[in-house]
């Protein structure tokens, strides 16, 4: 191979062709719209609330995606549904409300796509973030998830009544007497986001598209 021009054109054409593949994908699903339920007349998926959207930014900056995925594999391709990570597999349409789609590629931690459904209790999520080992799941998690104490404020009570926001922690969490643990705005946003993570609506269009092929009857 001697010709520099051919080399250049080939090098150029290869990446251009591969980029064209991205454009094809964009053409196919780049403008998926919300689906309007014909009976209930609701639009799905619903957008995140304002505070949950702030929580998405906290999720992003803390790098939760390093260990947690947000995608449920369909029944026939993995045990995600049996693990209780969702009632159905994820569809592309589920993600159009997410300004950043954190589908993730590592499962050092459990999948969080439907964590809001599994764990709607904010108090529990605060405990999990402040002192993972103090929760039921946390006892076992003690080897895995780090604590996020910097998302909380440790305040001296100084004889006052404790804040209505204070997290009720068991003694094992190691908070000294006379102190209370109050979530910061960032922790509140993150928990709002986590509680918002749930795909409740099953799109009829997607369901039929993703249904496993039926085996022809009458053979054998």
């Amino acid at each position, binding site marked *: *191979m*001697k*010709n*520099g021009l051919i*080399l250049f054109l080939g*090098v*150029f054409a*290869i*990446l251009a*062709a*591969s980029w064209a*593949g*991205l454009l094809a*994908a964009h053409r*196919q*699903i*780049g*403008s*998926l719209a919300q689906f309007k339920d014909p009976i209930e007349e609701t639009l799905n998926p619903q957008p995140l609330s304002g505070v949950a959207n702030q929580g998405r930014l906290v*999720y*992003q*900056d*803390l*790098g939760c*995606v*390093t*260990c947690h*995925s947000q*995608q449920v*594999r*369909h029944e026939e*391709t*993995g*045990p995600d549904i049996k*693990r209780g990570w969702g009632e159905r*597999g*994820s569809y*592309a349409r589920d*993600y*159009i409300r997410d*300004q*950043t*789609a*954190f*589908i993730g*590629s*590592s*499962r*050092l931690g*459990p999948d969080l796509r439907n964590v809001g459904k599994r764990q709607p209790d904010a108090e529990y999520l605060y405990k999990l973030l402040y002192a993972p080992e103090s929760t039921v799941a946390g006892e*076992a*998690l003690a*080897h*895995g*998830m*780090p*604590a*996020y*104490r*910097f998302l909380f404020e440790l305040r001296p009570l100084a004889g006052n009544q404790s804040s209505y926001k204070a997290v009720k922690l068991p003694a094992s969490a190691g908070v000294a007497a006379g102190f209370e643990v109050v979530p910061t705005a960032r922790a509140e946003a993150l928990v709002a986001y986590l509680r918002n993570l749930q795909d409740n609506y099953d799109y009829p269009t997607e369901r039929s598209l993703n249904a496993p092929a039926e085996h022809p009857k009458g053979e054998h």
Partner: protein
Amino acid sequence: MNSNAHNARTEQAEIDASAKWPVLVFLGSALLWLLLGGALQLAAAIQLHTPAFLSDCAWFTHGRLAPAAQNALVYGWGMNAAFAFGLWLMARLSATTLRHGGWLFVAAKFWNLGVTLGIGGILAGYSTSFELLEMPRFVTILLLVAYAIIGVWVVTTFSIRNTENVYASQWYLFGAAFWFPWLYTIAQVMLFHAPVRGVLQPVINVWYVHGLYGLWFAPIALAAIYYFLPKLLGKPISNYYLAPLAFWWLVASTAFAGGSRLIDAPVPVWIPTLGIVASMMLVLPLVILGLNFLGTLAGRYGSVGGSLTLRFIVLSIVGFFLSALLGLTLSLRSFAAIAQFTLLTGLRDWLLFYGCFSTAMFGAAYFFLPRLTGKEWRSTALVQAHFGATVLGIVLMTVGLAAAGWQQGHLLNDPAVKFAEITRALTGWHTFNSVVLGLLLVGHVAFLINFVWIACPFNSQGTPVAQINPPPALSLATKEGHA
């Protein structure tokens, strides 16, 4: 013939002299990042088995530390080393000096400033959470400006070449010089400036990640292998006539293979399917590369031990094939059903980046540093420590991550096993991997000390290179590559 060889030698000395300072600056920065990135990586690995480690400081929470380490290694060590090696090799193979090297210092400044701000940004909480694109948006322009200078230098050095033929290493270097900025710019624009919606974002992300490893780091390592094997063994690449086919087929398949990282993800199914098909098409170029490399090595394995560079290059070949084979298996649906989301996917990238690319750069540095500086390596013990740590580290890491990932995949796929039990089962492996990362770090420190000794201009201990024994039969290598 003799006077020819003599001319070639003076010419090489002239080229090396012109490349000396840009290469030293890039390689020096690369090594500092290698150490820093390695330390961050070790800290992040420790957190996996001791979650309380550094967890009270937001800057060092695992979700920030791990990507910061990865970015420091890829953009700090990997890119700087690739620049140093690529500029030097392109000048040598094009038989022309590296001109106006001063601009390359500017580029190095901008690049390293960009990476520093980027890593700081990730730790401070400005991460974008897209794999290998975590650095905050504002560093993009710094990196692109710096890269523009470097890329233009590589391409112009190629276009003013004084050689008749274009050697395989040059195809790979030339291609990589174009692919990186394109991949990076498109990923930046489509993710941040005019963001696409929903799951298209991960599609673009894997396209970039796969491209960065397969169309930037792998080609640069292959350029090193194609260059050093015939040069140091003193025989031409066997079945060289197949090399162009391997080049085109390899890069064309790799460009489409990124989708194989999205098996069973909520994306249109043709994307992973295309990725799987493209990955399977890699078999042919892998066979050709095997014929090229192993054919050249055949019968000369005895002489590998004699050259430090050659030892690293052989390691790089092993790393390349291991990573490629793992990539092929990971794109089989039945295997992916187990290995998806486990440590095995990380092992594939690590093998390519460390086992293949980094070892090739180490080998190249052991070759060109004495020639650029006119000095010898000061400490044989440190050289041996570096090589030993690298070999042992790669073997242990491969075994450790493969076994851990396999176990993790099986446990994840068994819904009866509670998640906490999986975490507990992996703790031992995480500890093992921390130890291995520590071992690799020791090797890197040894290399850095030797580098400082050889690169420091005030060091009078070095002896001028009076006797580089030319390999016995360089004739064809000279004809092909003119170097």
